[in-house]
Structures are given as structure tokens and as C-alpha cells.
């Protein structure tokens, strides 16, 4: 365990203050970056993917300096990375560790699966109620159709 931790820190270097999002499925790292809007963040951001993980085989990790996320904000990534862990770092020390949770409502960043939905034809932000948190099923508040994790596109 200690050895593993060491290696991880070598692969993606530590931050002094900020947030580490760990255990992201390897293929979802860029989605997580996009969902959190980190493309437009001016702080130092480190990320790695296809890192070895005992639990998942391969995983991704994102470290954002000097950013601390509200639960509401961080839970958005649960759809793309349900296994993710959030670690809050202050002065190189872990001060908080928690799992992401699937939110009740999803706004804007998921595309409705229904090609005939009005949100796919006009500049209208999508809105969904999460009707099944285990299977991850989202019901569109406009066309009422269900988008699930197998046909979900992150905008």
C-alpha cells in the first residue's frame, strides 16, 4: 500500500493545496475535466490516466491546485466517473476524503438520447431528473424520454 502510494505520487506530482479526484475510470478523465469546466481554470492542473490501480486495473487522476468544489458541483462527475474519490489537500495533507454521489437533477452537460427532442434542435440547455441512481437513468424534463448510461453523451 505504502509503495503504491509512493509510485502514484511519482507519476503525478503532489499539490500543496487543492483537490485530488482519484479513481476516475481511465477513459473518463477528459470527460471529468470538461464537466468541471477545468479547461477554463487558471490554476495549476495535473492529470494522469492509464495509471495502475489495484482496485480498477487502470485509472485516471486529476489534481487541481487551489480549487475546492461544492458537493453539488463535484457530483456532476458521478455520471461519468461513479467510482471517483474526492480528496481535499491542505498544506500537503489529506484533510477530507469522500466518494462522489449521483445527483438528483442533471442540468446542461448531458445530451438527450432522443433525436427528436427539442433540446437537440434548438439552443436549449438539457434538464433531467435522475430516476434510477443504480442503473443511472435520466428522464428528460422536456421530451420525457429516458437516457441511460449506455447511451449517454456528455456535452
Amino acid at each position: 500500500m505504502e509503495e503504491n502510494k509512493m509510485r502514484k505520487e511519482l507519476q503525478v506530482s503532489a499539490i500543496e493545496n487543492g483537490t485530488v479526484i482519484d479513481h476516475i475510470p481511465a477513459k473518463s478523465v477528459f470527460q471529468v475535466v470538461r464537466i468541471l469546466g477545468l479547461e477554463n481554470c487558471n490554476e495549476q492542473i495535473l492529470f494522469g490516466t492509464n495509471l495502475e490501480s489495484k482496485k480498477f486495473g487502470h485509472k485516471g487522476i486529476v489534481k487541481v491546485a487551489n480549487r475546492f468544489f461544492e458537493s453539488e458541483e463535484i457530483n456532476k462527475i458521478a455520471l461519468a466517473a461513479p467510482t471517483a474519490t474526492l480528496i481535499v489537500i491542505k498544506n500537503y495533507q489529506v484533510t477530507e476524503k469522500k466518494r462522489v454521489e449521483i445527483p438528483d437533477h442533471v442540468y446542461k452537460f448531458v445530451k438527450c438520447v432522443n433525436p427528436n427532442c427539442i433540446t437537440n434542435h434548438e439552443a436549449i440547455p438539457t434538464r433531467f431528473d435522475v430516476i434510477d441512481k443504480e442503473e443511472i437513468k435520466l428522464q428528460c424534463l422536456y421530451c420525457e424520454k429516458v437516457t441511460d448510461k449506455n447511451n449517454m453523451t456528455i456535452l
Partner: protein
Amino acid sequence: MKHKSLVSIDDYTREEQLHILDLAEGFEANPVQRILQDYVVATLFFEPSTRTRLSFESAASRLGAKVIGFSDASSSSVSKGESLNDTILTVSNYTDIIVMRHPREGSARYASEVSPVPIINAGDGANQHPTQTLLDMYSIRKTQGKLEDLHIAFVGDLKYGRTVHSLTFALCNFNATFHLVSPEELKLPSYVKRKIKDNNLKYYQYTDLHDAIPFADILYMTRIQKERFSDPIEYERVKNAYILKEELLEGSKPNLRVLHPLPRVNEIETAVDKNPKAYYFQQAQNGVYVRQALLASILGVVE
């Protein structure tokens, strides 16, 4: 119901739905009342639906309202590329209520969010058509004397039939038993069946129309469209099995009535029209009373 848009049938509670039916009875007894003469009703039909539009315009006219609008998108600013948001915000300056039909699903919900005046959904793609559901409920209650504890047989295209799905949802509040008659390819979708089960109600599935008719209080016919079949040979095989012939009504319950959302093509033989159990043209007439009730209620002219 003042200022309350009607987008999905679930927007109105069971009690609110029943209240609309009660008001509609009043308009049936007294259909010409000039209670909306100071109001303007807009009918925005982004796709043509002559029957529904005429029904709404007839309802508005009999109440004395002025009607403005368009009957298909090519004759409106939509053809110039105007967004739905802009069309709704513009038209809402000219009118007290908007009745809209649109080919995209969810369009009416979106319109109800941006519009300062109430919206009545007259069909959004394959999604919802709540005024059809209310007029179906009105017709059922009127012919059966009640809505509770009835046996409803749905026949034909139960997979894509929007009216069937919405009416099933609504009747789940009234302890209905459902008899579902369709070819294998056009069975009722599982999410609708789940709704029936969630309400601890029963449904029975049939492929043969003969088997369901003896149980039915209401026989709700729908059209089977050729383009719904992946295999044209399958369509040819089944198409005649779901046509209602008069002799099929022999042995049906005396209170049975035949409903159909119209337009009919050939799924009910014209010989049935004269049978006292045929009710589909009166059903269309009931649509005017229900729409009068909705317009008057949403505009706050009747309580």
C-alpha cells in the same frame, strides 16, 4: 386551473382532470356562451393537424374568442429560421393563451417555461397530447356513467400509439383493467406496462381481437401503419386481423362502446358506423366541449 399550462396529462391531478370533465358537461349542455369575447386565443401549428386545430378553433369561437395563428410552419416565421423561444415570446404579446402543436418532443414544455401566457399542448411529436386524453376520458365517463373499475381494450398499434400510452396512464388512477390486442411487433412498451403494475392493476395481452372483445366496456381502436413494420410480409399477414367488423361486436357487452382517436383508414369497417355501439364521431364532438372547458378554466373565466 387559472394560468396553469397543460403540457402533459400528469400536470393535472386526478381531481383537476375530473373538474375539467365536469366543466365540459356544462359546455355540452350549453355550448354557445360568449364568455371569452374579450380574449384572443393563438393556435400555433408548427405541423399540420387539421382536426385538432379545427376542434380548438371551434371551441374558442363558440365562446366568442378571437383566434389568431398559423396552420403549418411554412407559413410562419419558423421558415425564416426563428427560434421557438422567439416565436413564443413574440406571439405571447398578442394573445392570452397559446395552443401549440409541434413536431419536436418537449417543445410544449419548453414553451411553457418561456411563455408569460399559458400553453396548451396540442401534441408534441410522439410525446404528449393531453387534450385527446381528456376527451377520451370524457367519452368513457359519458358512455359508461363512471370512470372507475372499467375494462378497456386497446387494439392495434400499442407501441407507437401516443393516445394509448397517455390514456393508459390516466386510467391507472381509476382502477382500470387493460386488455391489450396487438401484433407481436407493436405491443405496449414495457414502461407503460410497468406503470400498470406499479398501480397494482392488471393487463392481459392478446394477438386475436376475438378473445378480448367479450371482456371490454370500451373498445379503443387505433390504426396500424405499414411503415411501423420492419418486414412488409408481416404487415400483410396481420393487417386484416385488427379490423373491426360488425359481426365481431355480437356477443359483446351491451354497454360496450367503440372509440377511435381518428382519422380512421380501414381499421373499422364503415358498416360499424351505424351500430349503436359506435361512438367515435361523438367522441370527436366531445373534444370541442373539453377544449371549451380547458380554455375557459385556464383563462380563469370559470372556476
